[in-house]
């Protein structure tokens, strides 16, 4: 059986990739994808723990979170659409009307 730490390491790596992407990317869609990565890293954690704890609730939790991530993505794309309609671009670093 694969040791728990490997899962955790995988999860950490995926999470870090997501985080890196979140910070470095400009395109809104990509950033949204990176968020999905991070959420999924957490899901890996949950499932791994669930399996190692012999407790189903972690997997249930993961299922819920996938559903939620989908919702979030949906609403995210909707907002992206609005942004795109307004400025023909979804480069988020140009999105700074609101500051200071």
């Amino acid at each position, binding site marked *: 059986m694969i040791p728990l730490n490997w899962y955790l390491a995988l*999860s950490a790596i995926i*999470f870090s990739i*997501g985080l890196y992407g*979140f910070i470095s990317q400009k395109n*809104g869609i990509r*950033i*949204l994808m990176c*968020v999905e990565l*991070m*959420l999924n*890293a*957490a*899901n890996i*954690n*949950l499932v*791994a*723990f*669930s399996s*190692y*704890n012999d*407790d189903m*609730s*972690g997997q*249930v*939790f993961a299922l*819920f*979170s996938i559903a*939620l991530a989908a*919702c*979030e993505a949906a*609403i*995210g794309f*909707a*907002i*992206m659409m*609005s*942004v795109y309609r*307004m*400025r023909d671009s979804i480069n*988020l670093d140009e*999105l*700074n*009307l*609101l*500051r200071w």
Partner: protein
Amino acid sequence: MVDLMLLAPEIIVALTGLIVLMIGIFMGSSSKNVLGYIATAGCLAALAMVIGNFSASALMFSDTLSVDPLSQFFKLVFLVVALIVSIASIKYTEDNKDTEIFYALVLFATFGMMFVASANDLMVLFVAFELASIATYALAGFEKKNPRSVEAAMKYLLMGALSAALLLMGISFVYGATGTTSIPGIAQNMDVLASNAIGLLAIVLLIAGFGFKIALVPFHMWAPDTYQGSPSVVSALLAAGSKKMAFVAAFKVFIVALLAMQADWRMAFAILAVITMTYGNVVALSQKSVKRMLAYSSIAQAGYISMAFVVLTPMALTGGILYTLAHGFMKAGAFIATAVVVYMVIKEKRDTEIPDHIDNFKGLGKKMPITALCLTVFVFALAGIPPTAGYMSKFILFSSTIQSGMVWLAVIAILNSALSLYYYARLVRYMYAMPHEGEKVSEPVPYVAALLISLVGVMAIGLWPEPFVEIAMQAASVLVGGI
């Protein structure tokens, strides 16, 4: 079933949301005003159910939901805020073709918040938390044609998603170390987590996750942008409602579930509370946009409420909990007052980039006396001037820090409180001491009603605080059980 009676408020809110959505689809945009009344009625009914069953105590659905004074208190807060927002929105959504969506989202967000309040399991808590969040993401971007609104929604969404990820990560660690997602269960299985380095990481991730919603510095960055860019009624909901949701979640997770690690998280909250209140107040000083100023003020107030985590005595929790209610009234009222001003600016077709710019508040005392008076009371309440709700809750919260000997914290809080007076007083000065432009504007009835409800709330807690203190104490006693 008797148990379902306890869930009646949630059910009413959800059903109202659905009804509004269904009816709205089949209505012409001219007659959609009725939706607002329906939503308001729903909130009122739910509120009545909550008050009627206030001291109920029950566990439901395999112990994943817990109805107790704490949850009832926060439901009260959320419903009051939802009520105020619904009433105010009757005017805001007038002649809008998406009225049903707006109300449905408000009610669903409220529904989510209410579930967070009674969640007894991290899974329920997370799902409800996200429900409320997602609904508010959409609400923030409700003005699809307004670049600021959309930008606000965008930032809110992305930062929200990031923090959700952090939160989920934190929850996963807690789950991993304790083997359960039940909040009381976690409290009983804390040995591994408390002794493991992962415990610290989990706590910080959870703080970051909740801190995002609470708007603790440095997780607050979205808040000023979003509060400023969103429609004012939505800002009211965000500041007065969803922020409180994060508080109740944090109360449950930290004080009930993770009590064994209180040394760590009290430290964290101490640092964050001090930074948050100071930063919020200092930056608010030079804001020109009133909504942005209120946002920073919100951040500062979050800092005060977080003191409850640091002091962690029954009195402090009472104060913190009472503060959430008081802040709900004050902040909701204040944002709605800005909504009235924005309405005025649009009506007068002023050429202004930022409709809530402080210059537009000049002479408000003459132009819109009720709004100005209410806003004055709200900002003075926020500053903690008696006899208002803000003073009463600060009184209990700050005094508890003295009681537990944390004089330094009290001093910092009090200096901050005095500092905040500067920007509040400036706003008041603009309203009363500056000459006004244009004619007197008649204030729309829904806005006035919402403002007056908030005003009554603020003054009632200030003048006759006993019943509110009483229920806040009951709510706190739920948390205190473990201490």
